[in-house]
């Protein structure tokens, strides 16, 4: 378990302020945030490399705030590996290993055993990172701190490394806290996500929840939400003219009209009337040739201004009365609806897909 309670720390001119969160024993936590948010400093503070100036750091149930790094029973893997260049691969992995067998086992599992006798200077970036992870795991830590460990790997090696790490994690059930820029990776790996910005936690919780309901427009933007609108919210209760939400209770309690530019759409949420932001993930926006008769309450006719193919999905931008709405649709839908720039289309999304923040 990794638990921080109102921790403050300073590294050079950078400060972590009032950091409080808990990653339960055996859980996988992810820290996300822009460059310079303090993610590495956070890991180093937990590791004891950077001293906490106040607050409490609890690891595995013990107060470790003042404990030196070597007593904290955790491993750290940096983005740049930091393999000891004067040692061979084997010597690196054995450096802090619980025993020689543990070192052999992790080298075997990460596929670096054939490199054992080589100098680490001769390794590729991917190999170095695998050795660094193996080195940290050979010590059999109770918690593992990973600072973007896969960012230097090619996609194939990244998948292998993730899979092996995941397998060992499931076997040993140590606690993990991983820094990542990639929210997709965070959603894939994490039981708990912590969003850090300028040395402070700006949101924490279930990654899915953070993804769906970002606490601020900034987080929404950082997490890659394409539709972030500034506008005015007005609770409307039963006054909505075309409101047919299935849940009467939700409707009475939380119906909100949100006006941005020339558009007014309906949302659900607890907001104070006045200026706010609405976030709608592109995946929640559907496109149709004509307004549908379904429960989708927010439907706007507009003109397609851009189609950007991105893997299995295409990002289609619809200009609805001057407000751009981005929809993520499959290539098949693009074909079936004959979508092309300039054509007219109806963009729709449910009130429940609108997150006000």
């Amino acid at each position, binding site marked *: 378990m990794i638990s921080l309670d109102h921790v403050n720390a300073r590294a050079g001119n950078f400060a972590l302020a009032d950091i409080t969160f808990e990653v339960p024993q055996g859980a996988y936590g992810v820290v996300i945030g822009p460059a310079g948010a303090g993610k590495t400093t956070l890991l180093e503070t937990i590791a*004891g*490399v950077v001293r906490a100036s106040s607050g409490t750091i609890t690891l595995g149930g013990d107060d470790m705030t003042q404990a*030196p*790094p*070597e007593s904290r029973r955790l491993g750290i893997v940096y983005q740049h590996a*930091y393999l000891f260049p*004067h040692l061979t691969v084997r010597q690196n992995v054995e*450096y802090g290993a619980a025993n020689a067998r543990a070192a052999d086992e992790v080298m075997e599992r990460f596929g670096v055993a054939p490199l054992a006798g080589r100098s680490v200077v001769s390794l590729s970036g991917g190999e170095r990172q695998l050795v660094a992870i193996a080195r*940290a795991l050979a*010590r059999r830590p109770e918690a593992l701190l990973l600072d973007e460990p896969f960012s230097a790997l090619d996609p194939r090696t990244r998948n292998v490394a993730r899979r092996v790490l995941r397998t060992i994690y499931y076997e040993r059930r140590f606690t993990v806290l991983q820094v990542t820029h990639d929210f997709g990776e965070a959603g894939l790996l994490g039981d708990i996500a912590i969003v850090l910005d300028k040395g402070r936690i700006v949101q924490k919780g279930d990654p899915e929840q953070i993804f769906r309901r970002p606490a601020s427009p900034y987080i929404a933007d950082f997490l890659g939400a394409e539709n972030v609108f500034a506008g005015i919210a007005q609770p409307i209760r039963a006054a909505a003219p075309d409101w047919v939400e299935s849940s009467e209770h939700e409707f009475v309690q939380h119906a909100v009209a949100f006006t941005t530019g020339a558009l007014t759409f309906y949302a659900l949420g607890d907001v104070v009337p006045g200026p706010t932001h609405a976030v709608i993930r592109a995946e929640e926006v559907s496109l149709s040739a004509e307004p549908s008769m379904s429960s989708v309450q927010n439907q706007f006719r507009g003109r397609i201004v851009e189609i950007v193919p991105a893997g299995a999905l295409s990002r289609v931008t619809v200009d609805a009365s001057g407000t751009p709405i981005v929809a993520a649709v499959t290539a098949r839908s693009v074909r079936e609806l004959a979508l092309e720039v300039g054509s007219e289309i109806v963009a729709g999304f449910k009130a429940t897909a609108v997150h006000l923040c």
Partner: protein
Amino acid sequence: MGARAQPNRLARATLSVFVAVLASLFLLFVVGPVAGLVSSGGVRGLSALARDTELRQSLILTALTATTATILGILGGTPVAYLLARRSFTGRAVLAALMDLPLVIPHPVAGIALLLVLGRASPVGSALYAAGLRVAGSPTGIVCAMLFVSAPLYVSAAREAFARVDARYESVARTLGDDAWRAFRRVTLPLSARGLTAAAVVMWARAVSEFGAIVILTYNPKVVSVLSYDRFTSYGLSEALPVAAVLVLFALIPLAALRALRHGDPAPR
């Protein structure tokens, strides 16, 4: 466009020639006197080593005192260099400036300062003398003078050597179970070893060639630099030349070793 490119090329070529001539003159200025000295007195100096007992003893004294000073410099200077490279603390800039001070004051002045503190008239000097340790006018005084003027070079270079090793290597070693001292010994020291060796060599070479501070603190017994001065003032240039040439050759040995050491020095990552 072609017409404009032509004068540009000409200007660049002229500039290149100018820079090359300037650099050559500079090299000649630095190397010329030393080469002249070695070519004029080198052979005579080396052959004098066999018959000139005073020169031989002086050379041995110089080597021993410079080596002792270097060892003391390493022992005392390494922690200071590490502190300056790694830790941030109040007064760090002042400490760094103090360490550089002996580099900027004239060396005879350094000798006078040392004489004030370590001479028999001073409380420290008289206490040491009472304890049986004579500083002024003894090999101890030579070591003190050498240490004072050359240790800052070691500290400065050692500090650079430590700074070149990313502190995160130590962080990783600490999380792998090493305490601070063990991480230093197993990681930082091997990674900075080349730089530290180079720093020690520079300090040793500087100690060997020291004159100003030594001549104030300990004229006798004579190190080679003092002996060459003594021969010059007593017998003239022709007698001083072989001694000076031997000193230059002696100082060249560690510097050549240093260059060999630096050749292909990989930057740690």
